[in-house]
């Protein structure tokens, strides 16, 4: 089972180039259709679950706008 993850896009840097969208293997990124950032771009965002924390998006992002997190289940909680 692939790792579970999430990304956070920093609107300030994102230029809506769409590269992250095009490379995400799980297709969980989109350009926010409604939201505009200060420069007038529709920034990228993770719009559904399924991120596997592969960092492919971050790797291609020319504006270093993406932070990628791995999510590991906290065992204690479950117990």
């Amino acid at each position, binding site marked *: 089972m692939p790792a579970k993850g999430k990304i956070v896009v*920093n609107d300030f840097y994102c*230029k809506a180039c769409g590269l992250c969208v095009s490379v995400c293997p799980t297709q969980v990124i989109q350009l926010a259709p409604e939201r505009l950032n200060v420069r007038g771009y529709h920034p990228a965002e993770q719009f559904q679950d399924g991120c596997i924390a592969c960092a492919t998006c971050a790797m291609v992002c020319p*504006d270093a706008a993406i*932070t990628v997190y791995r999510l590991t289940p906290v065992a204690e*909680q479950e117990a």
Partner: protein
Amino acid sequence: MTELQYKETVVFERPTALTPTQTTYCPGCTHGVAHRLIAEVIDEMGIRDDTIGVAPVGCAVFAYRFFDVDFVEAAHGRAPAMATGIKRSLPDRFVFTYQGDGDLVSIGMAEITHAAARGENITVIFINNANYGMTGGQMAPTTLPGQKTTSSPTGRDVELAGYPIQMAELIASIQGTSYVVRRSLHDARNIRQAKKAIRTAFEVQKRGLGFAMVELLSTCPTNWHLTPPDAMNWLKENMLPVYPLGDYKIHDAVKSAGI
């Protein structure tokens, strides 16, 4: 089933050697990727305090705004000469130039070649995007045969304008260079490899092993008139055949240093 609680571990984040500034690059331009990679290497090697960047004249003319290190701005093409002057006066600092193909291959051909021949102990990051981005997309020496640009409106005519110059090959052929490779920025896998090469190029400098150049194939969506994803694809399909990726020179000293 109870909702799981998760611990968040950062897998990837913006390097600290980048300033908190929006770049001046067009959306999707891989100049930005190259910047990020250099910044990651500076972070990982912990050399922010000792690094001096030399910015070119080209789209990266404002590079100094984006890196949190000391910077100078060279005249068009002269970054290797300027870096030589800096490095000779401060041999223990890390000095890198960041140059486009117009800058490095065209007007700056003499300076890069001779810096290489002298084996200057500097790191050269060379962004090959097959045109002059900043001035609006004119033909560069690296423009592909038949490629239309604003100064080759019917496509580069090799009869009149000659063939692309393969710079990694040329520089590698010069004795006195230590590390010369070509990488590409068109997808995540290649970007990871580009990063490794940049790291190696800085490690070469750290060990005083001499001249290192990383040629990076890079996109220019704006002047190629393509969307950023299409530009990645165009690079892959059109540039890779003319500019094969590979290690063109890895000096024995570099090999035996195990970097």
